[in-house]
């Protein structure tokens, strides 16, 4: 197997499988959408094509059948009902598993579960149709005629494509193009492998359009030249020769190469493949970095221009540079963006499987799937969201009977929504389940020894809900394998905090719960508050900053060796950052110092700094070699004047002060 081609195939196939995942989810909602059905058909078909080229037989077997099933479904011969969905979804799982195995370096795949193959076979042969069992879908595609004046090699328009499809669909009674079954073979029965092979070779023998040159080993790898030659030969055939028929051995399907032979009828109408390029995110980061530098240079130029108004020409040029740089910066930012659909796509599956397992009836609604956010965020959000959705399904929504008794429809609804709010994304998971009882939570907190009864009774409802995000807090009486171990919400909270995001819980007993997550649009740019000691400046993530006020010694107390500041009837511990950041700082006069109240999780602290310089959006850069492990820093950044500011990592800062 050619490693290089295999790797390219894996990249392409993984992408297709990812798309298929989403498309299959969509299909559950609109099982008759013909565009969708065609897309899914093409997806399986293309994966099969690649697998065929590489000779990954078990993968071909499954894709082949899935493709056939979808061919039936899109023709309306088979209905995509729940039973069909189950089979297709498990076939899909098997395909993803195969790809994972190939990625993991396995080269000999086990055959797929015969039960699944049979199930697929039954599905696509469900209604007796006189068709060749091998049916690489109707093999008489050569009957399809192109409209006059159409360049068979040119890209197709949508209309042409549709026309061809319907033309083909009109001819269900396909002449099996010379493929004959051996006597005594039941056309509808399962085939043995031998029979399959025999048919394949029979077909290959018939494949008169494409012939190999003398001396070419049909099983061997092709040279590029041979491949090209075959391509030409194939293109020379006026009609769409390879069409759906799958040349498994003779004319390998190009996986990496430009795809002229890619059966036209199945290809996307527009040459999508050529309009995109895969770029390593590292390279994007580099570009981002350089753009950042360019912005700094521009800023300096802008200051220079300000002092010399006489040179109008120069001013104009700098003005232009200003615009171009801003646009460039935005464009580069956009290249890192991906629709949140990428994460949402997996949830219909999660909810479907889970509700089936639990015997619940749940409908998942997705909103705002097209919202864009940073690629890294998309990936980082996947796990916390899965956890929250599982929680909603497991704990939130009640059993159908219970719901009915409470006067609600049997079917519960879970809504997963995303929307942009300024420079933030708001993600919310809402269910119409039983909601949470703040009193139960208060009581639980006392039982677990997290607080005494007094403190618990003083918690407002919202704070009581937030208790569930504490480590080791679980109210589930029975720990299931789905949720309820009391680690989940804690982990979710930590992950969201790490992304500079916040999490908020609303709930109404009997009506349902809503969890809101706010994360910044991008991880690359961080809004910060710039503070400094002397000339050394530090950046504090703005999301954590609650308020800033002047340091006033009369408002402080020393309690148990810890300085505290009184703020609206509450005492908040003070952390003198200079203890750590400026050891030789002069403490005699702190009158011009400022206190910055920050919130880290449900903890608050007041950071005492010498100077507050205002807000700045910064690009986070890693600290260099030998510095990445230092607690308390999230990285560094270059400020508008070209100097370096260190970005504080607040949880780390707090840790540090606990040991001081």
């Amino acid at each position, binding site marked *: 197997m050619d490693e290089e081609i295999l790797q390219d195939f894996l990249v392409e196939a993984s992408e297709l499988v990812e798309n298929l995942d989403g498309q299959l989810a969509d299909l559950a909602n609109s099982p008759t959408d013909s565009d969708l059905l065609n897309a899914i058909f093409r997806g399986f078909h293309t994966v099969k094509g690649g697998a065929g080229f590489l000779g990954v037989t078990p993968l071909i077997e499954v894709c082949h059948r899935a493709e056939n099933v979808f061919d039936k479904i899109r023709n309306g011969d088979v209905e995509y009902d729940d039973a069909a969905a189950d089979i297709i979804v498990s076939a899909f799982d098997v395909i993803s598993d195969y790809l994972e195995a190939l990625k993991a370096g396995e080269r000999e795949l086990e055959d797929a579960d015969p039960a699944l193959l049979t199930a697929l076979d039954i599905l696509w042969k469900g209604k007796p149709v006189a068709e060749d069992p091998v049916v690489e879908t109707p093999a008489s595609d050569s009957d399809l005629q192109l409209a006059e004046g159409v360049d068979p090699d040119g890209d197709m328009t949508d209309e042409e494509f549709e026309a061809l499809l319907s033309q083909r669909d009109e001819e269900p009674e396909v002449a099996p193009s010379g493929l004959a079954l051996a006597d005594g073979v039941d056309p509808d029965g399962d085939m043995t492998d031998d029979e399959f092979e025999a048919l394949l070779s029979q077909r290959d023998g018939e494949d008169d359009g494409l012939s190999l040159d003398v001396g070419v080993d049909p099983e061997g790898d092709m040279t590029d030249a041979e491949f090209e030659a075959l391509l030409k030969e194939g293109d020379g055939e006026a009609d769409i020769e390879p069409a759906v028929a799958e040349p498994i051995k003779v004319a390998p399907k190009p996986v990496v190469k430009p795809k002229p032979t890619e059966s036209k009828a199945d290809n996307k109408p527009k040459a999508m493949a050529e309009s995109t390029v895969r770029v390593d995110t590292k390279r994007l980061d580099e570009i981002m970095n350089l753009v950042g530098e360019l912005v700094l240079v521009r800023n300096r130029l802008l200051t220079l221009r300000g002092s010399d108004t006489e040179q109008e020409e120069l001013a104009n040029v700098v003005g232009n540079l200003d615009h171009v740089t801003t646009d460039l910066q935005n464009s580069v930012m956009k290249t890192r963006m991906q629709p949140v659909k990428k994460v949402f796509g997996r949830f219909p599956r999660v909810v479907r499987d889970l509700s089936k397992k639990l015997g619940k009836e749940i409908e998942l609604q997705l909103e705002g799937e097209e919202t864009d956010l940073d690629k890294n965020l998309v990936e980082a959000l996947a796990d916390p969201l899965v956890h929250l959705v599982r929680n909603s399904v497991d704990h939130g929504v009640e059993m159908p009977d219970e719901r009915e008794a409470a006067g609600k429809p049997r079917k519960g609804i879970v809504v997963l929504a995303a929307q942009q709010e300024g420079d933030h994304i708001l993600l919310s998971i809402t269910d119409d389940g039983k909601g949470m009882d703040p009193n139960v939570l208060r009581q639980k907190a006392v039982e677990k020894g997290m607080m005494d009864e007094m403190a618990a009774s003083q918690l407002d409802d919202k704070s009581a809900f937030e208790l569930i995000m504490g480590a080791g807090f679980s109210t589930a009486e029975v720990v299931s394998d789905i949720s309820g171990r009391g680690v989940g919400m804690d982990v979710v909270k930590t992950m969201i905090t790490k992304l500079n995001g916040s999490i908020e819980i609303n709930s109404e007993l009997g009506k349902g719960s809503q969890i809101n997550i706010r994360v910044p649009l991008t991880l690359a740019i961080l809004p910060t508050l710039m503070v400094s000691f002397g000339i050394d400046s530090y950046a504090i993530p703005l999301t954590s900053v609650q308020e800033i006020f002047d340091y006033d010694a009369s408002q402080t107390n020393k309690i148990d060796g810890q300085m505290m500041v009184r703020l609206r009837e509450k005492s908040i511990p003070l952390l003198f950052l200079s203890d*750590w950041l400026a050891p030789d700082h002069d403490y005699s006069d702190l009158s011009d110092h400022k206190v910055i109240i920050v919130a880290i999780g449900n903890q608050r602290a007041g950071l005492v700094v010498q100077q507050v310089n205002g807000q700045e959006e910064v690009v986070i850069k890693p600290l260099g070699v030998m510095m990445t492990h*230092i607690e308390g820093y999230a990285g560094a950044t*270059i400020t508008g004047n070209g100097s*370096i500011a260190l970005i504080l990592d607040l949880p780390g800062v707090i840790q540090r002060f606990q040991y001081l």
Partner: protein
Amino acid sequence: MEMSVMDNAKPDDTSFLSDEEQEKYSGPSMRCVLFELNSEIYGINVKKIREVLRVGTIRRVEGANPNVLGVINVRGVIVTVVDTRQSYSIQPKIVDDLSRIIIVELDSENIVGMMVDCVLEVKDIPEKQFEPMSSTKEGASRYLQAIAHFQGNVIILIDVDNMFDA
């Protein structure tokens, strides 16, 4: 620079040398950047060096290793600067006009700056001249790859990969 050029480069002008010395300096050589620390000459393979910078503002980072001077901004990349003197247990010296920061490439992603007293020149040193270090000092010796006696000088060759492994 082409690898082959470097590896087979001849030592600097040897025409004034006797035949015997010519023989000594022949064969493959390594091109090194030579710099001074406390009046000793050190060398680093030129392949490992990205650039040499004048000393600008170094931002101190509280909590870093004692042998780290801080970080600098090299065209948008934050680079750690190491006090090379401290790494070799040499008493510190105030930065002056001759002080330089040598930017060393550890691998394709990581670079680090080494503060040195001054940078002397780039020289091709015949590999025959290198002899492995037999230092009595544990720890420090793992940074030092070899010493070379060359044109009347002792040159200490630094193994940067080992130096920043930790």
